[in-house]
């Protein structure tokens, strides 16, 4: 999780990004961040719901890499970094995901370091 900490801070500097969370189901590893507009348990519930979305897609053999939920003036964008870790971003409704992609790619690179081979 620590490898993401600086990346979370970097992503939060973007004006269109409201919240950034890296959720995990790894043992002894805490989630980075929490949704400020809801309670801790609700925030956990959101993480769990997103996790199950990715799990459901894997179950039918159509693994998702990104889910974008449009919530009026905002959107929750979730990326599967690894089978155990997801990146969740609450962004402005009109935010360009293409512009945020380089940031996401840094998370993905951190999640799966290139092999030595």
């Amino acid at each position, binding site marked *: 999780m620590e490898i993401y900490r600086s990346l979370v801070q970097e992503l939060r500097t973007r004006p269109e990004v409201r919240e950034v969370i890296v959720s995990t189901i790894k043992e002894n590893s805490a989630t980075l961040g929490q949704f400020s507009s809801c309670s801790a348990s609700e925030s956990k519930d959101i993480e769990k719901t997103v996790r199950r979305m990715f799990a459901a897609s894997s179950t*039918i053999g*159509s693994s998702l890499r990104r889910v974008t939920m449009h919530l009026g003036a905002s959107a929750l964008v979730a990326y599967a970094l690894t089978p155990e870790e997801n990146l969740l971003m609450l962004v402005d409704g009109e935010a360009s995901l293409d512009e945020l992609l380089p940031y996401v790619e840094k998370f993905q690179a951190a999640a799966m370091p290139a092999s030595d081979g």
Partner: protein
Amino acid sequence: MEGSGGTRRSVCSRPVSTPSPAVVDRSLLLVMEDATQRSAFRRILAEKGCVTVGVDSVEAALSTLRAAPFDAVITSLEFQTNDGIDVIEWLGRHLPSTSVFVVADQLSEERSAWLEERKIPVFSLSFDDDQATSLIRAVLGRRGFFGFGIEIELFDYVQMVALSGRDKLIEVEVSSDRVASVWFEHGDIVHVEFGGLKGEDAFYAMLSEDVGRFRERFFVAPPRRTVFASSMHLLMEFARRADEESLPHVSTRSSDLDHKTALYGVGSPEEDAEDSSSEALREVSLVEAASDSMISPIVSAQESGIYERSSQSGPHGVAPWSAAESASMINPLDDPETRRLMLGQFFAYEGVRGVAILSSTGKVLAEDLRSDPSQVTLAGFLMRGAARVSRALGQGVFDGVIADDCEGRTMLMVAMGATSAVLVLDEKADASALRREILEDQ
């Protein structure tokens, strides 16, 4: 372990080879009362390099099998005090992966049929080199690593069997007097029986019990085929139905089974609310149940009275949602032309390869996906999950989901009042732009 001094209950003490059958490959247990026969078998099998252990009674056989697994068991059926069938049934209950062979010269028709049904080979008492070779080939033909007494969760097991493509029969005991039987062929579930139900409903009803133990049985061919969907689809469909609280149930006493209520439970809202079926979703690791309809202003078709539950069963014993007989309750989507027009309006957008229309509870009202139909089940999950997220975040608005998979495919879901559209897009389509376009057109 060979019998010593004729003591019937003793486990034979003189194995042909010294290594323990627990660690030696291709170990065989011989269960024969007649010591001469046993010796003849052991000699021939030893010449073939097999490790054999001989016992002279059913009791000794079961004790030996409890102590260590064997690759194969060769048993006669005739014993003074027991029946060799007991050994076979015990293996079926406890070690169904163990190969079993019968030694007999004469068999009744009933026994022959019983053995044939379980595909158990029968050798004659004049066990010769050819029969030994055939047996060895059968035992040696079993490759790979086998486990015994392994704990595994049912959902993991179903997925594992689906991947392995094996034929299996399992019995799931949900209570002392209620057992479900599930047949797999080539990895897929092909037949399920539970509490008077058969087919998919039996599977869902069994899963909705949310507690039970299961074990493999000797594979016996299913009496019929009642399930045609893939195992993966069944798991997804179960989770969807749990979400909708529309799982079939069986009475706790099978004799009390009333098929009408069994299919959907007794139906009172209070009892439905107490239904713990959504708990099962935690086990399935699928989308959390959304307990009510989607975010306002969506009103479920069910609530709006468009549909009511039919008392007639569908092709698999499922009472389908159907148009009510009353003229005032006609569902416009029952009309093929209306369905065609509704779906067609979305195909008019560029890049749309497939369309489905869902109710607010995720029920498919019309679809023409032209590709993978399981996508629509996933779409229902994503919509309900997104609605839940919206509620948790206090947004109060939820107007669509875009799902991009790892193979470059995109699925767009757009909320439209009482229904939602699910669009499968081609690689060139811009999902965000298309979503805006659809919302503007509305």
